[in-house]
């Protein structure tokens, strides 16, 4: 344990909010003796403890790396603003939760990046650790910084800060990466030599091995790999999820976190193929876990954590083909022990009355739907295969069964959207309201319909990656239009911050010219940008100006289908030809059947050894 850090902490902690986030020591955390280890990995999550500890990926990789002999992986989160200020005032460096040792002492520093608006948190953490921000300023094998996670499929905005990226699922590749580092250390390689070695591991992308050239109009002219670098880097996947590591002895958070429950990942990938959904494409191919595996994992992780709730998670859990046998067995176990089961992302279309009643026995929570668009035409264009009939039918059953709380999620600014589509949302909401009036078992309690709209962000590796984003002003106009048409005290409408989604689009679609912008925004004080308490649009606008970067280039301009896109070095499995096909079908409001109704040929099956999906 670090003496000075442990002397400073008791003086600082009484003055910060929720100090339990900063001390570690949780049940099931991994502690190793320093004399037994040769490699220390700081697993950094660029957001708060509450968000990071809710992330299943972090829990998986923590366990995977700690299962390696001689390697100790510890956790580090972004301190909240009050803690950051106290740390800077006291000269307390960023430290890892398990040992309280400074992050600067660690051999490897891994970031799990799930969300574009956490980019500045990476810089905050490196800076608090006293580690140079830019990869080129870090020399030698000490403090190697690498990153992975859902939003690193476009790694370019972070290219300047990160030594290399680990793309796709990390269960196997992270072990290979750490071993590669240990080998380099033994052979006393230089950092450059190590980067060439680690770049040989499938799924590893070393940005410094590629040169990006631009046209006079600002578009990308060429991506030139250095001799020896692969033209494409294909993401990694786990071939057999039933054999993959799963944290059955999970760390038990010592303070409440966002997902304060066990998380059972029933499958990876999504059969649906919604054209706006990055995760839906990049998590493919679809791979379900066996219900027996899941049942055992559920029992073990519940017993080890003492949690009283378990979530069956995936991008679309009701599409999990063994959902019924699994929930049947689990409800029996859980009901006897006062454990709740929750199933998020239940779909309206195959929402079985049975399952709803079964889960209701244990707990009553609200109904949630994400029709995403207000008219069938637009839902077809985005390939969101939910019909009005499905939604109303499900509501009817639910209202008759005593539910009186519905949440509805939509997007505004979708490609081809017109005012008619916007007003279609209000129409659907009123139909749901009338459905409640006709079918509610108890009208005295009233009904609450929450409607939320998000501002559409065209993401890389989706059928809409070339689309433009509408302006924040236009988005807000559509929000107001919708609001004017939903005047009922049972309906509550909230909409996402437009400016945040605009910057999210810039960062998600950005190229290497965004690196200096991120740094400039951070130097101006941008931090914790995903939090409304901290998000400061003006700082970003000033940073963009300072760096001479036009945000509209990445948002309202849209990308040409013949344009070279910054993320084209990366192969996430789903092919560009398929994405183009999806784009064309969207233009014709033509749906693509889900994987179970026939393979649409997305290309992700190439990643499977057997070459065939089992959706």
């Amino acid at each position, binding site marked *: 344990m670090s003496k*000075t850090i442990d*002397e*400073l902490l*008791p*003086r*600082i*902690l*009484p*003055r910060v909010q*929720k*100090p*339990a986030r*900063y*001390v*570690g*020591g*949780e*049940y099931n955390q991994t502690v190793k003796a320093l004399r037994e280890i040769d490699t220390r990995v700081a697993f950094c999550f660029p957001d708060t403890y509450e968000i990071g500890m809710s992330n299943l990926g972090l829990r998986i990789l923590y366990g995977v790396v700690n299962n390696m002999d001689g390697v100790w992986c510890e956790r580090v989160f972004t301190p909240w603003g009050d803690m950051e200020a*106290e740390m800077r*005032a*006291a000269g307390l460096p960023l430290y890892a939760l398990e040992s309280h040792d400074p992050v600067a002492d660690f051999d490897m520093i891994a970031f799990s990046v799930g969300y574009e608006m956490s980019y500045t948190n990476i810089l905050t953490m490196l800076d608090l650790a006293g580690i140079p921000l830019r990869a080129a300023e870090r020399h030698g094998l000490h403090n190697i910084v690498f990153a992975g996670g859902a939003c690193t499929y476009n790694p370019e905005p972070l290219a300047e800060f990160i030594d290399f990226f680990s793309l796709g699922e990390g269960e196997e590749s992270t072990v290979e990466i750490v071993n590669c580092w240990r080998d380099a250390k033994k052979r006393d390689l230089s950092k450059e030599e190590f980067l060439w070695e680690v770049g040989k591991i499938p799924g590893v992308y070393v940005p410094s091995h590629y040169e990006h050239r631009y046209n006079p109009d600002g578009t990308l002219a060429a991506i030139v790999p250095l001799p020896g670098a692969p033209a494409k880097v294909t993401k990694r996947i786990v071939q057999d999820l039933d054999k993959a590591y799963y944290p059955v002895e999970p760390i*038990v958070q*010592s*303070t*409440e976190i966002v997902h*304060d429950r066990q998380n059972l990942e029933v499958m990876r990938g999504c059969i649906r193929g919604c054209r706006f959904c990055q995760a839906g494409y990049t998590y493919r191919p679809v791979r379900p876990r066996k219900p027996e595996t899941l049942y055992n994992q559920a029992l073990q992780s*519940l*017993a*080890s*954590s*003492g*949690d*009283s709730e378990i979530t069956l998670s995936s991008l679309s859990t009701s599409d999990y083909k063994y959902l019924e046998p699994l929930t049947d067995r689990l409800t029996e176990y859980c009901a006897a*022990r*006062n454990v709740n089961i929750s199933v998020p992302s239940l779909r309206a279309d195959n929402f079985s009355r049975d399952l709803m009643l079964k889960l209701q026995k244990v*707990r*009553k929570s609200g109904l949630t739907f994400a029709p995403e668009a207000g008219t069938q035409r637009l839902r077809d264009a985005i390939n969101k295969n939910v019909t009005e009939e499905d939604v109303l039918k499900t509501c009817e059953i639910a209202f008759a069964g005593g539910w009186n709380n519905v949440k509805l999620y939509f997007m505004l600014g979708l490609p081809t959207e017109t005012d008619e589509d916007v007003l279609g949302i209000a129409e659907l909401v009123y139909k749901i309201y009338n459905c409640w009036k006709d079918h509610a078992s108890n009208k005295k309690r009233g009904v609450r319909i929450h409607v939320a709209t998000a501002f559409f962000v065209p993401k890389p590796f989706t059928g809409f990656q070339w689309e433009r984003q509408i302006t924040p002003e236009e988005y807000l106009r559509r929000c107001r239009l919708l609001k004017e048409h939903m005047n009922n005290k049972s309906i509550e409408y909230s909409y996402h911050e437009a400016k945040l989604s605009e910057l999210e689009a810039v960062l998600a679609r950005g190229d290497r010219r965004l690196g200096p912008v991120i740094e400039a925004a951070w130097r101006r004080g941008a931090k914790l940008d995903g939090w409304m308490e901290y998000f400061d649009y003006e700082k970003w606008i000033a940073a963009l100006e300072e760096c001479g970067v036009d945000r509209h280039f990445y948002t309202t301009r849209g990308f040409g289908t013949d344009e070279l896109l910054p993320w084209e070095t990366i192969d996430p499995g789903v092919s560009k030809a398929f994405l183009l096909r999806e784009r064309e079908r969207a233009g014709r409001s033509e749906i693509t059947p889900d994987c179970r109704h026939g393979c649409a040929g997305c290309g992700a099956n190439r990643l499977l050894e057997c070459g065939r999906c089992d959706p």
Partner: protein
Amino acid sequence: MRMLFTKEGVAIWSSHLDLMRALMRSFRRAGIELKHSQGFTPHPELSILMPLSVGVESQCEIAEFALAEGCEIPAEEIAARLNPVLPAGIRALESWEGGQKAGKLAWLRARLTLRYQGTGNREPGTGDGEADSSAPLRSPFDFAQGKAENDRIEAIRALFGRPSLIVEKHGKKGVVETDIAPMIRELVVKGTGNGEPGTGDAADSAAGENAVVLEAVVAAQNPTLNPLLLATAIERYLPEYKPALVQCRRLEIYDADMRPFR
């Protein structure tokens, strides 16, 4: 049923609600099924007698709980079953059936460790938490140093000899002025080097350092005196002796006759 337990080490930074959740999870991990309330969202029947402030240590916390029907574990065994699955800093000391009525709880013995920075009362109590780890170790032969510390201890002793001590109490109704003197039953002021060795708590490391230790018995109920208010009184009346850091530990709780409350 009741259980006596500690809250020390990293666990002191958990809030009362965090602790409740941690205990509920621990019961589940130990396979001890708690009785659940009826209704929409059944919750386990478990409570903690005197909520503890964040940052305060204790060796006398009491939890009260009821076992589910059919869970036939003898009360005395609960503590031993829980210990292997409790989080760091929480230790079950004993468990028993029944117990005194909560209303009988009357007194709390607590220890405050007031830490000063640097040496002696050079720059006393800037209170900004700036740690001075480069400060030279106090030499036992440093006469001036020893005198300054004695003055400080004498001043604090004299302060708590006063018949009335008004401090500001931050409560639900905003800030109110309260006289805490009548709520103090006993109070001893000790200098450095008097920490009881080997208890493994904060007072231990106070030995040989620049600190003053207060041990007090204060009202635990109707009205309650948060022992941290003793430090507030020093800040108010003796601003020159405001400590840089105050550490607090609950030692024991008693009924009106000064018998340990169980």
